[in-house]
């Protein structure tokens, strides 16, 4: 690790020199440089694939403040007691040691698109020939009346994995039998469409396992429908009868406010006082760095060219994953990983003239409802009519056999092992 850090500093110093001289690519720089902001499924995959497949012909610097990455995917399984934090935590070491990716464990403070530079939190600037922006989402702290960043320890969101996930689990485990949990579900578009409902399932599982079947989970949803709705509702009825109450906007008549001081949630329909736990999942935007760099449109997310994930705002930048507007593809780890491979191929094609092929994307989202009862939704996608369009999709069916659901759970665990090896291994 130290060696890589030194390497990076060396390169950062070199980069600063380049910066002082002007455009890096035009000045006899030894090889083209790609800077990747964000070490999640989009960024880590892009960094690895560009470094690995260019075999040293492209310099790759990954800018990510965390030394280890906690996956948001399968963090619900931690809540349900199916996985440990250790099992969803991954090191970046192999990206450096096996593929030569240089790791800058810092936040990216700003992007200067005119100068093609990224400024890090410590003030060092790095020039780039191509920039990959994959910062994930940021939370709109002003989207839930009465709730803000100051209240995320009282009413956790746990929509970015890490300490918030551990906090939510601790709070869940402390819910007494008969206690009321309220989840404020997010409006579209947001990270992981089935995620809130898998979380409800995993919360109910943990409560049931602890014998707290009189506890109740109330979901206040701004949406009229949600991902895999029929499958989740069938599962809740079967596994957790009477424990889950999902409310559409016409039932709860709108969220009025939350009061973190008294753990109260007020809707047009009912006021829930002294809740045992309130899980606020607010509205979302692309990560702040993408907004600050002017890569987003009025929706708060970043338009891209569906044939290569290039930013519609800047030809030298690719935007991946949750931060992008990826048409019919959901904001998921699988999608980000798929998009990263397309972008990596196209970036190498431009920088070192390697062959390129038409973009093809795919996604599957598995959701665990109860032990060995897993459902999935997914599809394949192509650039069509100016967006990433679904070509063929599938979704699990209600009434499937326990054997099929068990096989789907094995697939879910296998996918996690596969994608994390693909990102970090």
């Amino acid at each position, binding site marked *: 690790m130290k060696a890589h850090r030194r390497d990076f500093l060396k390169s950062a110093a070199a980069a600063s020199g380049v910066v002082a001289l002007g455009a890096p690519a035009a000045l006899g720089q030894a090889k083209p440089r790609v800077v990747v902001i964000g070490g999640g499924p989009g960024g880590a995959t892009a960094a690895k694939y560009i470094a690995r497949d260019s075999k040293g012909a492209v310099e790759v610097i990954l800018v990510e403040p965390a030394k280890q990455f906690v996956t948001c995917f399968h963090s619900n399984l931690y809540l349900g007691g199916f996985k440990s934090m250790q099992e969803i935590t991954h090191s970046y070491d192999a990206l450096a040691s096996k593929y030569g990716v240089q790791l800058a464990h810092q936040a990216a403070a700003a992007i200067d698109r005119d100068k093609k530079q990224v400024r890090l939190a410590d003030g060092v600037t790095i020039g780039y020939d191509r920039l990959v922006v994959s910062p994930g989402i940021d939370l709109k702290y002003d989207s839930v009346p009465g709730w803000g960043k100051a209240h995320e320890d009282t009413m956790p969101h746990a929509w970015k994995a890490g300490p918030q996930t551990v906090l939510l689990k601790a709070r869940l485990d402390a819910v007494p039998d008969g206690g009321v949990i309220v989840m404020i579900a997010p409006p579209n578009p947001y990270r992981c469409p089935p995620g809130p409902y898998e979380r409800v399932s995993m919360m109910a599982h943990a409560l049931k396992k602890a014998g707290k079947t009189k506890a109740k989970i109330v979901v206040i949803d701004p949406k009229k429908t949600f991902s895999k709705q029929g499958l989740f509702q069938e599962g809740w009825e079967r596994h957790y009868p009477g424990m889950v109450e999902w409310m559409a906007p016409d039932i709860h008549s709108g969220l009025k406010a939350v009061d973190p001081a008294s753990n109260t949630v007020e809707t047009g329909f009912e006021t829930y006082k002294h809740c045992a736990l309130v899980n606020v999942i607010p509205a979302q935007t692309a990560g702040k760095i993408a907004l600050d760099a002017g890569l987003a449109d009025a929706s708060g997310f970043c338009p891209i060219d569906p044939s290569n994930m290039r930013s519609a705002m800047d030809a030298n930048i690719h935007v991946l994953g949750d931060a992008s507007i990826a048409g019919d593809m959901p904001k998921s780890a699988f999608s980000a*990983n798929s998009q990263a491979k397309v972008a990596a191929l196209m970036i190498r094609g431009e920088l070192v003239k390697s062959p390129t*092929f038409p973009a093809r994307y*795919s996604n599957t989202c598995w959701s665990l409802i109860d032990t060995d009862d897993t459902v999935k939704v997914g*599809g394949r996608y192509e650039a069509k009519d100016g967006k990433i369009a679904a070509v063929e999709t599938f979704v699990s069916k209600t009434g499937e056999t326990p054997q099929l659901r068990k096989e789907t759970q094995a*697939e879910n665990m296998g*996918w996690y*092992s*596969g994608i994390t090896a*693909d990102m970090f*291994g």
Partner: protein
Amino acid sequence: MNQQRRLRPTRWCLPVAAAVLSSFVACVEHAAAADPAFGEYLSSECVTCHRSDGQDKGIPPIVGWPADQFVAVLQSYKTKDRTNPVMQTIAGRLSDDEMAALAAYYATLKPAN
């Protein structure tokens, strides 16, 4: 003279030559289609689930499979004789050439241990 006679085209020899030529062309096409390098590129879609080190963590490993078997399994997903919808959608867009290239690539791999 004998040599010339042997090389002289005969009535039956022309169709044979044509058949040999077309089979040669077919061979070249097949060789191009079954290019492991192209298969390696296509495999980036497989490795999200099927670990490239061949470990089985819940999804069957596919490294080191005989190429014929590899193609046959993909075809059976494409025709939907096999039921897993994830694989049906993946195989559904693979051409015969792409399947051959993938099979050629995976046949070259060995499990890590």
